[in-house]
């Protein structure tokens, strides 16, 4: 295939004093601030950090697409600023939207990139065959790229970059919006390339469990490098800081919230029926009860630290150093009236047909008041279609569905006042300011006068949007957009909340804040229905269903599902293991 890799350099990227500023409106944004580091050759390096850390800017500079304001960047020994054509001949870069032509077929996309990369015609078919076999796209060669599912698009994007194995592969958030199965396959492909061709890989990701698989991790924050090393070197110092608490049922949310804002706590998370706690100081498991005044009924076990813990820790430390708050906001919400065990959402044998194709093929489930209910599934499993039917945006072909006792599609406007909806990609009016968005959505839900003013004030305060009240929504960082979208859907204090991929692409810190809000709402009795690709988030739910090809594969609490479906021989399966086992079981 390709010539054997030459190990001429130890480092594939050498950046020194790299600085890049942008102006957006009147604001100056420092995307990279005096960044100096080296990326080793022949391994997979992960670039992690919250929104606005400068990951994409750094990658674009490496690819010769941007010119730094100051500093030097060497890629494979070439100056990426001046010698960009040489760099571009030897690297491949997959941008966030993977650069596929959606109106070309899979084969045509491959052909285009083969032409651009100068691959001899005679060698192409063999390369296509092996890539298609690797990505599982072989049956879809004639399909338009736009008709592929998110996961398949990603794999095709990757295949296009691998047509001619480059010496350095740069991937910008290759797994956003991709289901766990496809994600795992993507990683397998990347690693096989590293092994086969000795390729160097630099990728950015918001999934820290993924970053854990990198051989080297670089943590960035607001244009600064906070740390660099093997993943274990990050989590090692937190040994003895991590515990699993087992609270009695029904108390996990309150307990987690109480813990979350304590000074001694780095992080606390709900994992199924348990709570994962990361403390500031190393503690003997026996002393946890005392330190946190926990009741005797709560069990405590020590747990091993993860990269994510270190990420939160380092970020919090930095924010504290910068003098910024790291406390989670707790919002207020009126207590929802009604018996707690009543079924609020009922779906019976729901079907939705598009032509001959059943996007949703006879599903049934019900959601109780105050429950957090997760809808999981691979890309194209029918989650979004189900969601749209529940919200009344799409008529059902067959079956029954009730939300608060009504079918929203047929219900009068009044019934919709009880429902909040946060659409995929945080759909906001981008031309409007934060304030204008809030005002508009509150009016749309029929609020006016003092009540409206009060709610807008509440939203600005509760979601920490005050400083950005007059910023145009388009210019907000993703995390702010997410908060604004949630605020907008809560203006009228709904009893039922629909969240469609509410944390996609958002960094772990923002995700935590988000779930603190959700937990608070659930405790107030708000029924919450959520779709997500983060399997860990599935563990925050009370109950979940897993869908595939329009049908429900399994439903139940995260615990029972984890117990029921897990790869043979795995002791403590994660939700992701369970998910993949289930999907593969079905396929096999």
């Amino acid at each position, binding site marked *: 295939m390709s010539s054997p890799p030459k190990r001429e350099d130890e480092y594939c990227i050498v950046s020194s004093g790299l600085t890049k500023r942008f102006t957006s409106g009147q604001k100056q944004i420092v995307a990279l601030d005096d960044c100096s580091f080296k990326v080793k050759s022949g391994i997979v390096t992960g670039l992690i950090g919250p929104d606005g850390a400068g990951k994409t800017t750094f990658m674009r500079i490496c690819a010769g697409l*941007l010119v730094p304001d100051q500093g030097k960047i060497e890629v494979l020994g070439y100056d990426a600023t001046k010698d960009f054509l040489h760099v571009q001949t030897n690297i491949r870069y997959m941008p966030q939207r993977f650069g596929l032509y959606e109106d070309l077929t899979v084969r045509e996309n491959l052909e285009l990139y083969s032409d651009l990369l100068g691959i001899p015609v005679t060698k192409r078919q063999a390369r296509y065959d092996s890539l298609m076999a690797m990505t599982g796209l072989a049956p879809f060669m004639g399909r338009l790229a736009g008709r592929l599912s998110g996961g398949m698009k990603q794999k095709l994007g990757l295949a296009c970059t691998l047509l001619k194995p480059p010496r350095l592969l740069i991937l910008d958030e290759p797994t956003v919006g991709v289901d766990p199965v496809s994600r795992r396959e993507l990683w397998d492909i990347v690693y096989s390339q590293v092994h086969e061709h000795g390729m160097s890989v630099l990728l950015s990701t918001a999934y820290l469990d993924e970053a854990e698989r990198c051989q080297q991790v670089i943590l960035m924050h607001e244009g600064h490098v906070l740390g660099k090393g093997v993943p274990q070197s990050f989590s090692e110092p937190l040994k003895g800081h991590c515990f699993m608490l087992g609270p009695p049922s029904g108390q996990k949310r309150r307990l987690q919230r109480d813990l979350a804002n304590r000074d001694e706590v780095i992080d606390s998370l709900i994992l199924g029926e348990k709570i994962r706690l990361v403390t500031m100081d190393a503690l003997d498991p026996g002393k946890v009860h005392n330190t946190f005044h926990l009741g005797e009924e709560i069990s405590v076990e020590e747990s091993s630290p993860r990269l994510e813990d270190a990420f939160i820790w380092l970020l919090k430390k930095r924010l504290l150093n910068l003098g910024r708050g790291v406390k989670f906001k707790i919002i207020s919400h009126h207590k929802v009236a009604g018996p707690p065990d009543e079924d609020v959402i009922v779906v019976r044998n729901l079907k939705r047909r598009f032509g001959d194709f059943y996007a949703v093929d006879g599903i049934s489930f019900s959601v109780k008041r105050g429950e957090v209910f997760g809808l999981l599934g691979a890309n194209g499993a029918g989650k979004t279609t189900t969601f749209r039917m529940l919200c009344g945006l799409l008529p059902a072909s067959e079956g029954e569905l009730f939300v608060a006792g009504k079918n929203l599609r047929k219900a009068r406007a009044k019934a919709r006042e009880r429902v909040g909806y946060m659409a995929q990609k945080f759909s906001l009016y981008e031309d409007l300011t934060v304030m204008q968005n809030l005002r508009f959505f509150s009016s749309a839900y029929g609020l006016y006068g003092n009540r409206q003013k009060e709610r807008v004030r509440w939203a600005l305060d509760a979601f920490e949007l005050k400083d950005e009240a007059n910023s145009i929504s388009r210019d907000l960082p993703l995390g702010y957009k997410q908060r604004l979208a949630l605020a907008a859907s809560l203006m009228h204090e709904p009893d039922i909340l629909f969240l469609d991929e509410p944390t996609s692409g958002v960094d772990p810190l923002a995700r935590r804040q988000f779930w603190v809000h959700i937990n608070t709402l659930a405790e107030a009795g708000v029924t919450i229905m959520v779709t997500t690709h983060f399997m860990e988030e599935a563990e925050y739910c009370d109950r979940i269903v897993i869908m595939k090809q329009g049908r429900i594969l399994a439903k139940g609490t995260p615990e029972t599902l984890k117990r029921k479906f897990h790869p043979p021989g795995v002791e403590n399966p994660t939700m992701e293991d369970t998910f993949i086992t289930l999907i593969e079981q079905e396929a096999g």
Partner: protein
Amino acid sequence: MKTSQKSLSRMRLSGLIKKEIRQILRDPSSIGIAFFLPVILLIIFGYGVSLDAEHVPLGIVIEQPSPEANDFVSGFKDSEYFDPVFFRSIQEAENALIQRRIMGIVWTRNDFARQVLKGKEAPVGVIVNGVDANQARIVEGYITGVWMKWLVSYARSHGLDIMAPVEVKHRIWFNSAVRSRNFLVPGLIAVIMTLIGGMLTSMVIAREWERGTMEALLVTPVRVKEIILGKVIPYFFLGMGGMTLSVFISIVIFHVPFRGSYLALGFASALFMLTAIALGLIISTAAGSQFVAGQIAIVITFLPAFMLSGFVFDINSMPFPIQVITHIVAARYFVSILQSLFLAGNIWPIYLVNCLWLAVMALIFFLIIKKKSHKRLV
């Protein structure tokens, strides 16, 4: 690996062109602009639009019927230009005019016969609805024509010596039948090519930026030149295809004469196509989104091609500052070439001068593009 920085790779270029062609074939809006819109426009202009008035509803008032009056009026009945409507009184006719039922009035008074017989220059009242000044003038011309014919025949039949002192014989060259279609349709070809070149090109490039495919393209070893050529070549041929289709329809369906050389037409069209595409490329770099690109393209390519090219409105009659502006409208030169080639034949001096202007514009545009494009974001 040895790759010369300057060299153009045929494989890369053909890959880009193939891609573009496939996209064109799959995108209904490209096909719409390149083939559907031209046909629609040609049909509208070819069949629908005409400046030549026929069957104009004309009110005729005969206050006192008499052989002379009837004789005078019969000229209007026989004319193909008029559909006469008769009225008893001028008031009725004026009402009809106000209600837009008739375009004009010819009014013979009570004493028409008496005055005519006495040779006293009987006044015939003519009222035209001046709202549409152009049509009014044409109608006035037609009425004058009928009147003059009548004068001659009256003189002949009465043995009067009122031969007109000056007799005008006119010959309208190149379009003796005076069909407005004959000049509207060739002019339209310029508008159609402007649409394909300017609007379509600018929008497809803006689309690549919008969808993020440009970013992916830029990081391949592709050269800027290749990206530009990869756009210019397919749209060039698409535009030439649209042009050929339009010329075919003009000649075969609308029977517009073509008196010049096809080779000359091809060459001039190619030049014009290049300027149009170049302008489209410049617009696309200025506009971030398809929406804005489309808007700019309409305002700075489509409208001028319509209004300032001499396609419908005579450039000489425009105020001087606007005449100056027309010089930077490429369509102006092309319309001039087209109307000459179609109706007059190969008039080389006109052809060459206008081609030269087009070439200069194309050159300037491509220099701007060369300066503006680079393999960078922002």
